[in-house]
């Protein structure tokens, strides 16, 4: 029953009012109020359920159960109900939209219609109004949501296509409802009053929720009127929230901003200025664009858009500006500033003969003009650079004198080095090296240099190895091979024996090393013995072990050592003279010397002989043959005596008679011959005696 319902609703409202009179209480948990709210929820639910029309079925729960249920479960119960009815409401809304009998031109009409549809709309709205006051600083969020949800449910029929069943945003709905309330209250409100929009939380510089909604309403109206027209005027100024032109049908717009046709829209109308120079923004004109954007999208995907925009709108204005700056497209020109040059270019200046166009416009120039200016400036720069001298970096080979001092330090140079760079010594490398060294020491692996010995093999030894036996071998072939085999097998034995020797040798070496260490510390060297070195006068090439670099005929002994110069002590400067070179004095000198030496020798010899004879005494020894010959020789030398030889005069010598008779004959013949010469005879006699051939 309506009256009964109304009374219960009134009581609920009263209760609610009393409970929420002091919102500051909600800063802390209020259990008593929570139970009140719960009971309120239950009564409202039951009430609604009682009046549920038959065609739409909500949840199977007839009553909301709250005993011993926590919030989550109550919430789920409500959700059951709401979900079930959601589709029903959507259909209803669609019907309402397509229904021709219902028109949305006037807010008042809408409101009236809405009023008709609603059962508890007024009360619900009033309830909502109050709930709107309860902000999210409520700790009991869940309760709040429950209540709003519940209230939404009866007022769901209210909703336009703008918010078809969405209840994700509390404020949004609240806003709308508030708006509706205000509209209802002030029926005579017309266009201008729209300017006073209630600020919603999603509003910012660009977007005004209320304006968007208003625009949407207008558009729908227009669509309804103009659905006959087929072609679309592309150049028509699209309606915006602020556009008063739209409202020639119905004054709706509430513009305090200046209007701009779409053709006059500039970049700065839409985007935030560059960080360097903040350009004056028209926040409303920006809203304009945003609003249009919203309208386009919203018809299709409301919820998503709402969510996105909500998210966006939550940022600050500064954040918004930054975001817009990011959106902005910038050209990579050297000068992006909006500087207005006095001279756009020399050529242009010359051509135009003056600074005709150099008056900077009060407003910034068009983008094309700006671009042109920048280009011209760039061109000018490039030309001057091309004409002027190149910097030293670009002029071929540069020596230190041609470039400024220490200018190479500032340059980044890339060059190839053919040679390998020296290894950089870092701590790691030294550590590595030390590791290797330590390991080597531990392993006792030294890199000692092994003394190389040249294997001396003489030809003789080599020949010894393979004696050529020219005789038939005594061993048979089998034995030969047998011996060889044995030798091969026994080689291993021999090698095995040697290690014993080797070890002995090693032990001895260590022992001697130690002994040497003991004694060599007080080392006394042996006394120096003059070394007798026999030097044989062979060509020095055989004396030296290493093959000489160049063969030489030089001998080891000097010429003076080979042959003493004549009169070496006396005549040091004298040269050896050849036979023809000697003068008479030289010859005589030599002769004298020779004779002297000879005389000395003979004298010595005679002395020796005398000594010998004296020693021997009176023994008339038979002289040796050699001595006899020598005496004979001596005697016959000077021509004093002659050796009698058997020259046919043998007989005369044999006997004394024969000898004397011969002598007599000879004398007689001589006397005869030399009777005249008496003086000579005597001599001759003397001579002839000595000269007698016997």
């Amino acid at each position, binding site marked *: 029953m309506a009256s009964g319902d109304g009374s219960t609703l009134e009581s609920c409202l009263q209760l609610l009012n009393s409970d929420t009179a002091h919102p500051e209480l909600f800063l802390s948990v209020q259990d008593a109020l929570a139970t009140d709210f719960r009971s309120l929820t239950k009564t409202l639910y039951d009430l609604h359920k009682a009046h549920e029309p038959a065609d739409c079925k909500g949840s199977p729960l007839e009553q909301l159960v709250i005993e011993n249920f926590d919030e989550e479960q109550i919430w789920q119960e409500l959700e059951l109900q709401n979900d079930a009815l959601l589709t029903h409401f959507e259909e209803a809304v669609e019907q309402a939209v397509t229904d021709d009998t219902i028109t949305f031109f006037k807010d008042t009409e809408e409101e009236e219609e809405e009023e008709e549809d609603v059962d508890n709309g007024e009360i619900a709205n009033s309830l909502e109004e109050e709930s709107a006051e309860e902000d999210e600083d409520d700790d009991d969020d869940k309760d709040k949501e429950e209540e709003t949800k519940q209230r939404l449910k009866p007022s769901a029929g209210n909703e336009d296509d703008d918010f078809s069943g969405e209840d994700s945003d509390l404020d949004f709905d609240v806003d709308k409802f508030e708006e509706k309330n205000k509209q209802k209250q002030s029926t005579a409100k017309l266009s201008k009053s729209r300017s006073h929009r209630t600020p919603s939380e999603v509003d910012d510089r660009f977007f005004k929720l209320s304006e968007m909604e208003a625009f949407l309403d207008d558009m729908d109206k227009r669509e309804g009127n103009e659905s006959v027209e087929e072609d679309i005027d592309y150049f028509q100024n699209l309606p915006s929230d602020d556009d008063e032109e739209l409202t020639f049908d119905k004054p709706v717009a509430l513009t305090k901003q200046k209007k701009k046709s779409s053709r006059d829209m500039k970049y700065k109308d839409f985007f935030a200025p560059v960080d360097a120079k903040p350009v004056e923004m028209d926040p409303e004109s920006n809203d304009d664009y945003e609003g249009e954007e919203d309208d386009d999208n919203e018809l299709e995907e409301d919820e998503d858009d709402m969510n996105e925009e909500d998210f966006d709108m939550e940022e600050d204005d500064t954040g918004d500006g930054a975001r817009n700056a990011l959106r902005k497209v910038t050209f990579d020109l050297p000068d992006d500033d909006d500087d207005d040059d006095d001279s756009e270019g020399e050529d242009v200046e010359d051509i135009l003969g003056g600074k005709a166009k150099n008056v900077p416009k009060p407003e910034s120039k068009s983008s094309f003009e700006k671009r042109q200016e920048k280009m011209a400036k760039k061109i000018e720069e490039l030309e001057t650079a091309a004409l002027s001298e190149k910097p030293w970096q670009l002029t071929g080979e540069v020596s230190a004198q041609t470039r400024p001092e220490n200018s190479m330090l500032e340059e980044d140079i890339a060059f190839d080095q053919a040679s390998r760079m020296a290894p950089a010594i870092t701590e790691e490398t030294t550590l590595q090296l030390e590791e290797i060294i330590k390991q080597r020491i531990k392993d006792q692996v030294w890199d000692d240099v092994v003394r190389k010995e040249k294997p001396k093999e003489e030809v003789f030894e080599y020949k010894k190895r*393979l004696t050529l036996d020219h005789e038939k*071998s005594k061993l*048979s072939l089998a034995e030969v091979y047998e011996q060889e085999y044995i030798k091969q097998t026994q080689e291993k034995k021999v090698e095995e024996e040697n290690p014993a020797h080797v070890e002995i040798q090693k032990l001895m070496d260590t022992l001697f090393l130690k002994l040497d260490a003991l004694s060599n510390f007080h080392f006394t060297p042996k006394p120096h013995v003059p070394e007798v070195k026999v030097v044989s006068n062979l060509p020095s090439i055989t004396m030296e072990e290493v093959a000489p670099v160049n063969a030489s005929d030089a001998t080891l002994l000097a010429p003076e050592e080979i042959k003493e110069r004549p009169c070496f002590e006396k005549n040091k400067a004298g040269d050896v003279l050849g036979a023809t070179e000697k003068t008479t004095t030289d010859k005589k000198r030599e002769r004298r010397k020779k004779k002297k030496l000879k005389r000395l020798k003979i004298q010595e010899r005679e002395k020796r002989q005398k000594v010998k004879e004296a020693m021997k005494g009176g023994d008339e020894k038979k002289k040796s043959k050699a001595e006899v010959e020598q005496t004979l020789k001596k005697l016959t030398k000077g021509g004093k005596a002659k050796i009698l030889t058997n020259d046919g005069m043998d007989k005369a010598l044999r006997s004394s008679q024969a000898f004397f008779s011969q002598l007599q004959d000879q004398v007689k013949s001589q006397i005869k011959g030399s009777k005249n010469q008496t003086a000579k005879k005597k001599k001759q006699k003397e001579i002839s005696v000595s000269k007698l051939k016997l």
Partner: protein
Amino acid sequence: MEPLSDTDCAGSTDTFQEVKSKRSQKRKRAAADAEMQPEETVAAKRPQFPALSGDQLAGGEVEMRRVPVPAHRYSPLKENWMKIFTPIVEHLQLQVRFNLKTRNVEIKTCRETSDIGALTRAADFVKAFVLGFQVEDALALIRLDELFLETFDITDVKPLKGDHLSRAIGRIAGKGGKTKFTIENVTKTRIVLADTKVHILGSFQNIKMARTAICNLILGSPPSKVYGNIRAVASRAAERF
């Protein structure tokens, strides 16, 4: 030579299957015993057969070789008959006889022959003796496996006729056989110089060395040069081994 399987897989017959190496197939009586043991450990996959004796290897038949004896070797054969047939019969277990009518030395296998190659070796031995080698030198053929006999003609090396041929033979022989003995001693071979034929007995490398030396002599190098060459070659060969 021991089969490799013996030394390689000592006790790990579980994981490895001992495979008899092919070298164990060599006809060595000594190795036959050693072979029996690893054979038993071989898995049942391989069928096991006992070793065949010599005559069974020939297929159960009796094989015979005949070596003709020229007239001038007849009396030396008679003189050395004891020394010839003793090793053949005792060590090689063959039957040997001298067929007076055909003047051939005939060698035959019998049941006792265990080695299949004994017959060939005996035949080679007799042949070597018949060619002119001493019995002791030819005996090496029986004892050592890798001795060979090579024959070539002097006129093969260089076509010589008349006096040149005689001189070549004289160069090879040397005074009192000196050169020939020298070559024999250095290269560990035995050389028989029979008119224009030269027979060399020895191992393969040594035969080659001796042959080179003799060829050089035939071609006309003086003996001293040949001595030098063979000495160098022989020393190098000796160093290598």
